[in-house]
């Protein structure tokens, strides 16, 4: 088991290295004009320059902040609303169809609405990011709360557990796998929307950096920004995965 995991790791590193090598080769051979495609060497140099001059770090922090606030807001609202809807059968019957109707609505469609209502502001970005990342968590929580083993509620009744204890000791832990899966999906959504909002509203962040670099044909800066976005996506997913496997240790026992 251990060895095969190690083997896969090595293989994936080899693939990544191969792609970078090809990229360098393509750039060196000038298959695509360097105006559009810088080599990894130039992108890396631009990344380092961006950090030492300080500007890129500000943009990075900007994107991370937008993403984090929107995602956290969505997490709180999604879990609270989801718990309310999921734990009541009547609520599920009345509200679930509306949710199903709203869910497939592309968030990009509400961006103009948000801009009209809130202007090109941080508030608009917060709203759009939170609204977009709300759905996976809301639906995950609704499903998780609806799927709590009824027998456990009877155990709670026999033990005379308080309502609060039932929520925190039975419903939430039982729904945790669904909630966390929703949170993981939302992370990606939050990153995408943070970039989109920064581009549209000119907010300090990597979205704005990428857009301005592209407009002024600074392809190395553009690639540095895109690479950084990839790293954010990868690292946050990794952190979320680690949090999940820690919180859901009991599920590992099941497998």
């Amino acid at each position, binding site marked *: 088991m251990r060895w095969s995991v190690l083997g896969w790791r090595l293989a994936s590193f080899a693939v990544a290295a191969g792609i970078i090598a090809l990229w360098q080769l393509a750039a060196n051979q000038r298959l695509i004009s360097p105006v559009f495609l810088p080599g990894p060497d130039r992108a890396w140099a631009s990344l380092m320059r961006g950090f030492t001059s300080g500007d890129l770090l500000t943009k990075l922090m900007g994107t991370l902040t937008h993403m984090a606030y929107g995602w956290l807001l969505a997490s709180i609202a999604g879990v609270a609303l989801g718990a309310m809807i999921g734990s009541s059968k009547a609520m599920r019957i009345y509200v679930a169809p509306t949710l199903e109707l709203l869910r497939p609505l592309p968030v990009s469609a509400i961006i103009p609405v948000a801009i009209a209502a809130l202007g090109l502001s941080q508030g608009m970005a917060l709203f759009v990011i939170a609204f977009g990342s709300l759905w996976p968590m809301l639906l995950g929580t609704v499903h998780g709360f609806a799927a709590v083993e009824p027998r456990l509620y009877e155990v709670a009744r*026999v*033990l005379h557990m308080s309502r609060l*204890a039932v929520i925190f*000791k039975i419903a939430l*832990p039982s729904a945790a796998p669904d909630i966390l899966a929703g949170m993981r999906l939302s992370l990606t959504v939050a990153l995408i929307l943070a970039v989109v909002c920064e581009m549209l509203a000119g907010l300090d962040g990597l979205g704005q950096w990428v857009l301005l670099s592209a407009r002024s044909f600074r392809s190395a800066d553009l690639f540095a920004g895109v690479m950084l976005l990839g790293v954010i996506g990868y690292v946050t997913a990794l952190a979320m995965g680690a949090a999940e496997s820690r919180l859901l240790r009991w599920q590992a026992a099941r497998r």
Partner: protein
Amino acid sequence: MAEPALALVQSSPSPARAQIAFDNVALMLGGKAIINTISLDVAAGEILCVVGASGCGKTTALRLAAGLYQPTGGSVRFEGEAMRAPRREIAVVFQDYGKALLPWRTAAGNISLALETIGMPSAQREARITELLAKVGLAGHAAKYPTEMSGGMQQRLQIARCLAQDPKVLLMDEPFGALDAMTRQGLQDEMLALVASTGATVVFVTHDLEEAIYLGDRVIGLLPHPGRVGLELKIDLPRPRDQLATREHPEFLRLRRALFDFIKASE
């Protein structure tokens, strides 16, 4: 002797009040009479076994005793008081132990759930958990999750959690029904020893006629459609019971025959 009437009242032993009393209990579910009617007294410390064909209302009767259902006719009383809701003195061992345990809590955590709920300070919990795990033969398994345990171990754990409630009554719904024969016999003897040490009252539902006779002080047989008592057998077999000697006892064989005939006729 001047007032014999008064003397008579004073000297008469107060009637042994039933711990659990079913008084003309009826229950309708979904417009259907599921129980109609059961009158029954369970004395403190008694082991009452309930048998009956599948679907005759055994589980329903047990849920009435637990306060998980309210009767639509008659009354269920605990120590003379009408049962309006479940009570902590009455613990329920569910048949489906896999569903009744919290999979995200270890064995110790599952027992802790009951201790937290009765408000035991956290400093005292650990010692009590260790004690309870040892009592049901799970010493050394405190850190295991239910899914890492065999069926027999999971049911032992559920029993330990019920004991953590310090119950006066244990209601058990086919608790060993899903276990293999060897495990089942082991658990039967463990349960008898536990009950003997705590003095708890037990209502034990089973579809295994021999199990009912082996465990019980009394066995009642339910008739189906609607559920009602069709047979009551007093079990006068010596205690402690023994898996071999008790099951070979002529009285055991006689009772088994009687119960078997009853079930056969009720189907």
